[in-house]
C-alpha cells in the first residue's frame, strides 16, 4: 500500500469516513494495530487563514458534521481570548443550550451505532428515531438540522424566540420516558453485559498516559471535564454532575454516554429556566494582534483551538486539535490481546468513525485470511447470538 500519510490537520475521524485500520492478528488475538488517516484532509486550517474572522466560523463548522457546534465554540472562544472580551450573558446561555443539544444527538448516534455493531439493530432504530426529535428541536432553535451557524466571535447570530421555548421544552420532555426505557434496556441487558463488560479495558494509568479525553477518559476514572474544570458558557451557573465510572471497559463507556444524555437534558432545561434577557452580541469591531486559545468539552472530549492575529481581519495561524486525535492511540492499549470479534466494538467505543471499520483490513498471519469490515460485524453478531443461546435469552 502506498504510504501517503497526512496524520495531522483538520481531520476528525468519525463514523462514515474513509480511513484505514490495519489490525495484525494471530489466530483470534489481535497483536498489532495501525491506523492510516488522511483521506479526509481538506486543508481547513489553511482555508481558515484565508477567510476573515467572521467567515471562518462557517468553515470551522464543517470540520465535522456531528461537532458542528464544538468547533465554532472553541474557535470563537479563542478569538475572544485575543481581545479579550466578555460575551453577553444571554449569548452564553444560548451557546450552552446549543452545545448540549449537540451532545445529546451525538451520544444517541453513537449508542445506535454501538447497538448496530453488537447485532442489536432495534437499539439502532430506536435511538436514531429519538435523535430525530432532538434534531427537530435544533431546527426550531437554529433553523437547520445540522451546521447550525449560531456562533460568531462575540456572541451568537440568532436569538431564541420566547414563544419557541415551551415547544422545545415539551419536545425534550417527551423523549425522556423513551430514553429511560432505552437506558434500562441497554444497561440491564445480560447479553450486552456479556459482550461489553471487561472488554477493551483502558486502565486509569493508560488513560492518563495516552492523554485520553472526554467519555473515554471518564469511563476509566479520570475525572476530567472542561465544563467543570475550567467552566465556560453557562456551565458554572446551572446544576449538573460529571459522570465518572472506573472500569474503563466498553460497558462503562456506554454507561457514561447514556447518563450524560440525561445530564445534558438537565442542563438545557435549567438554561431555559434561567435564560437572562439582554444583548446576544458584543459587537466586536477590531481584533488586535495577539494570540488566543479556546477549549471546550465536545461530545468526544476536549476540543482545542489556537488562533493568532496580526491585527488584520484574518487569522495568520489557526490550529485545531480534535478530541479523537488524542483518543485514537488508546487502541494500542485496548485492542491488542482481544478477540477479533470484539475488535469492532472496541474500536467503536471511543466514538470514532464507523465507516473505518468497513474499510478495516485484518491480516491473519497464520491462516492467511483477510477479513473485511463486513466479516468483522458478522463475527461480532455471531458471538452475540452464541452468547444469547448459552444464556437462554430469546
Amino acid at each position, binding site marked *: 500500500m502506498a504510504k501517503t500519510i497526512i496524520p495531522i490537520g483538520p481531520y476528525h475521524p468519525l463514523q462514515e469516513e474513509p480511513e484505514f485500520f490495519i489490525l495484525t492478528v494471530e489466530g483470534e488475538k489481535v497483536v498489532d494495530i495501525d491506523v492510516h488517516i488522511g483521506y479526509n484532509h481538506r486543508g481547513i486550517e489553511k482555508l481558515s487563514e484565508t477567510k476573515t474572522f467572521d467567515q471562518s466560523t462557517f468553515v470551522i463548522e464543517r470540520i465535522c458534521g456531528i461537532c*458542528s457546534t464544538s468547533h465554532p465554540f472553541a474557535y470563537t472562544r479563542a478569538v475572544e481570548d485575543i481581545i479579550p472580551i466578555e460575551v453577553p450573558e444571554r449569548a452564553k446561555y444560548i451557546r450552552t443550550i446549543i452545545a448540549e443539544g449537540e451532545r445529546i444527538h451525538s451520544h444517541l448516534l453513537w449508542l445506535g451505532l454501538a447497538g448496530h455493531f453488537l447485532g442489536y439493530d432495534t437499539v439502532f432504530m430506536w435511538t436514531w428515531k429519538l435523535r430525530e426529535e432532538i434534531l427537530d428541536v435544533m431546527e426550531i432553535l437554529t433553523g437547520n438540522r445540522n451546521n447550525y451557524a449560531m456562533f460568531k466571535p462575540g456572541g451568537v447570530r440568532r436569538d431564541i424566540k420566547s414563544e419557541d421555548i415551551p415547544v422545545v421544552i415539551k419536545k425534550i420532555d417527551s423523549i425522556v420516558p423513551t430514553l429511560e426505557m432505552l437506558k434500562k434496556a441497554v444497561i440491564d441487558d445480560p447479553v450486552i453485559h456479556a459482550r461489553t463488560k471487561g472488554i477493551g479495558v483502558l486502565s486509569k494509568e493508560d488513560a492518563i498516559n495516552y492523554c485520553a479525553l472526554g467519555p473515554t477518559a471518564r469511563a476509566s476514572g479520570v475525572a476530567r471535564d472542561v465544563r467543570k474544570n475550567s467552566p465556560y458558557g453557562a456551565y458554572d451557573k446551572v446544576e449538573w454532575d460529571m459522570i465518572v465510572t472506573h472500569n474503563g471497559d466498553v460497558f462503562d463507556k456506554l454507561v457514561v454516554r447514556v447518563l450524560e444524555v440525561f445530564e445534558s437534558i438537565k442542563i438545557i432545561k435549567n438554561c431555559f429556566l434561567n435564560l437572562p434577557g439582554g444583548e446576544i452580541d458584543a459587537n466586536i469591531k477590531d481584533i488586535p494582534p495577539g494570540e488566543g486559545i479556546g477549549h471546550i468539552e465536545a461530545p468526544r472530549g476536549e476540543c482545542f483551538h489556537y488562533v493568532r492575529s496580526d491585527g488584520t481581519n484574518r487569522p495568520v495561524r489557526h490550529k485545531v486539535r480534535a478530541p479523537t486525535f488524542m483518543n485514537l492511540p488508546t487502541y494500542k492499549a485496548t485492542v491488542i490481546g482481544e478477540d477479533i470479534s470484539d475488535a469492532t466494538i472496541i474500536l467503536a467505543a471511543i466514538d470514532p468513525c464507523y465507516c473505518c471499520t468497513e474499510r478495516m483490513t485484518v491480516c491473519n498471519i497464520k491462516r492467511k485470511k483477510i477479513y473485511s469490515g463486513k466479516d468483522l460485524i458478522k463475527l461480532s453478531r455471531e458471538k452475540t447470538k452464541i452468547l444469547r443461546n448459552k444464556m437462554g435469552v430469546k
Partner: protein
Amino acid sequence: MSMKLKALLKSAWVFHLSTGSCNNCDIEILDCLTPRFDIERFGMLLVGSIKHADVLLITGSGNRKSMERAKRLYEQIPKPCLVVAVGECALSRGMFIHSYNCPVPIDKVIPVDVYIPGCPPKPEAIIAGVVKLIEKVKKGTEKKSSV
C-alpha cells in the same frame, strides 16, 4: 442497456462513498434508513460492497488521496450504474473550493447523473432526489423504446 437500467429501479441497492466530507451528508443518508424516513420501503438498501451496488452515492469534496480510490471503485461497480452526488461539497466543492487538497470537482472524475444540493441536504431532499433520478431514467428509457 436501457432495459437493464429500468430493471434496476425496482430495488436500487446503494453504495455510499465518502470522499472527504464533514460527515453531515453521510449521517443524513443514514438517517434516511431509520424509522422516520425509512427508504427501505422503496426497496433501497445500503450495501457494504461496491460489487453489489446499482447506485453510487457520493459525498464530500474529493481530496487528492480519496479521489484515486473513488475512481477505482467506480471502475468496479457493475454497469449500467447510476451516480448521485449528495451535498454542496460533491457538487462544486462548496466551502472547500480554494483548498489545496481538493483540486477538481467530483463530476470531472466520475460522470454524475443527479445532483442533490444542500449543506447538508435534508433527508426529504435526498428522497426527492432519488425520485427524480427514477423519473429521469424512466423517461430516458421510454424515449428510447418509442424511437
